[in-house]
């Protein structure tokens, strides 16, 4: 592989940063179909290919379902693969998406998040959380730098012999996909070194020398056995992700935390929980409130599947109140996905901390500083035992 140097400090959109990460990991097969707001990842990858920087088989498929199906075959044959999608593309991929997880093939797929239409909308939303229970690992990034770093780490995680589960790297469409930030792009050599532990690992692959059945029809007990193994691998993935983040921090000097990131939580009375791009805004609001004497901190969920329940329980233990800001709606529960799962964490770990939920930023609307400020004030009120609404839609109420 020639791999002309693309390293250095650059100003990149989230999508272009994602494409840089993919190229640096030297994939064998990319199969993809365009959909806003993911398309510029592909455009950049094809540009890299035209420039001779990316040497990889690029398959133009007729839809997302075929994209995922092509990758399943390529990954089963031992290839390193990539695709990206959003919203209705993800919906169109749905059955192949579930197949890929059940088949336990390592695949990295970026989701530039977008609301599931209708109403028609092309920006940040809840496509990714809607498929959270299909057996994929889901990671959520906060910044363009983290998108790049997370994709590199996603290959280490997905292809690890103790994991072998496909991984989504999710980030809000428009907010991150099209916004530019400073990004440090590592070199091919550095990424090769980071991914080198995978070279020692053997995984089951399909070859003409040793033909295997793949995605086979099986009966009840074996089905349960494979689901049981999948669950066990999910549990291993949590610690593995911590280890991968530690290795990454040691080599590249950037540490975003492991399954969760904790920001000023140590002596905090109040803890806010977020996921994704709005966490940056939340951090700056927290800094201001800290200056005003309020002991508030933030926990950001980086790994949503498997859910970091132990880490979250540890992080919120002993706090006086929790505020959860969701950029999604869990229909039928009148709250967001993270809020409901945090309720389960409280029950599981016998915590009885007052908790309030907030829904904001749907369809790429701003989760503004003012909104986050109000969310924190409401959480403080809950800590003081005042009556609060269980869930508040910050832009409407």
């Amino acid at each position, binding site marked *: 592989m020639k791999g002309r140097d693309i390293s250095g400090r650059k100003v990149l959109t989230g999508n272009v940063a994602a494409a840089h990460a993919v190229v640096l990991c030297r994939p064998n097969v990319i199969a993809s179909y365009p959909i806003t707001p993911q398309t510029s990842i592909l455009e950049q990858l094809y540009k890299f290919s035209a420039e001779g920087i990316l040497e990889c088989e690029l398959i133009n498929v007729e839809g997302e379902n075929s994209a995922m199906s092509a990758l399943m075959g390529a990954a089963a044959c031992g290839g390193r693969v990539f695709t990206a999608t959003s919203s209705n593309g993800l919906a169109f991929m749905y059955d192949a998406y579930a197949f890929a997880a059940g088949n336990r093939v390592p695949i990295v797929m970026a989701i530039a998040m977008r609301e599931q239409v209708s109403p028609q909308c092309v920006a940040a939303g809840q496509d990714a959380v809607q498929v959270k229970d299909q057996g994929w690992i889901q990671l959520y990034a906060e910044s363009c730098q983290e998108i790049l770093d997370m994709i590199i780490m996603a290959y280490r995680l997905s292809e690890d012999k103790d994991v072998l589960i496909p991984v989504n790297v999710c980030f809000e469409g428009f907010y991150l996909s099209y916004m530019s930030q400073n990004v440090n792009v590592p070199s091919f050599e550095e990424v090769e070194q980071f991914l080198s532990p995978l070279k020692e690992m053997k995984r089951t692959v399909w070859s003409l020398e040793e033909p295997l059945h793949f995605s086979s029809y099986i009966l009840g007990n074996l089905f349960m056995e*494979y689901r049981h193994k999948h669950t066990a691998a999910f549990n291993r993935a949590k610690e593995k992700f911590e280890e991968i983040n530690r290795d990454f921090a040691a080599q590249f000097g950037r540490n975003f935390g492991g399954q969760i990131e904790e920001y000023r939580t140590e002596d905090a009375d109040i803890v806010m929980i977020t996921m994704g791009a709005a966490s940056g805004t939340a951090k700056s609001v927290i800094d201001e409130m800290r200056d005003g004497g309020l002991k508030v901190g933030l926990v950001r969920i980086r790994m949503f599947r498997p859910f970091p329940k132990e880490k979250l329980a540890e992080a919120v233990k002993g706090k006086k109140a929790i505020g959860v800001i969701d950029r999604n709606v869990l229909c039928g529960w009148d709250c967001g996905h993270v809020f409901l799962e945090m309720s389960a964490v409280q029950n599981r770990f016998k915590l009885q901390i007052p908790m309030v939920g907030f829904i904001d930023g749907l369809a790429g609307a701003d989760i503004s500083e003012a909104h986050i400020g109000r969310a924190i004030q409401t959480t403080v009120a809950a800590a003081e035992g005042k009556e609060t609404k269980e869930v508040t839609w910050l832009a409407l109420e």
Partner: protein
Amino acid sequence: MKYQSRFEGPWGDGRDLMIIHTGDWRSQRPVTKVGKCRQCGWCYIFCPTGCIEEKETYFSANLDYCKGCGVCAEVCPANAIMIIAEEE
């Protein structure tokens, strides 16, 4: 935990997965013309149930599991596989 399969996912070498006698479903069956088989193994690779077995000089289907789909005859470059109706 006691597992039956040595694989992490639904993979298998054929024998692992032969748990139902799918041969009962068959309305037609493949018959290998032994002299014509060149042992290229295409039927072995394409068989959806993985029931093709390699014999000394040819390949043939294990009829306990063969559903009679006819893919083996379709892909055979030597025309060594005939599909005949079960009634006969």
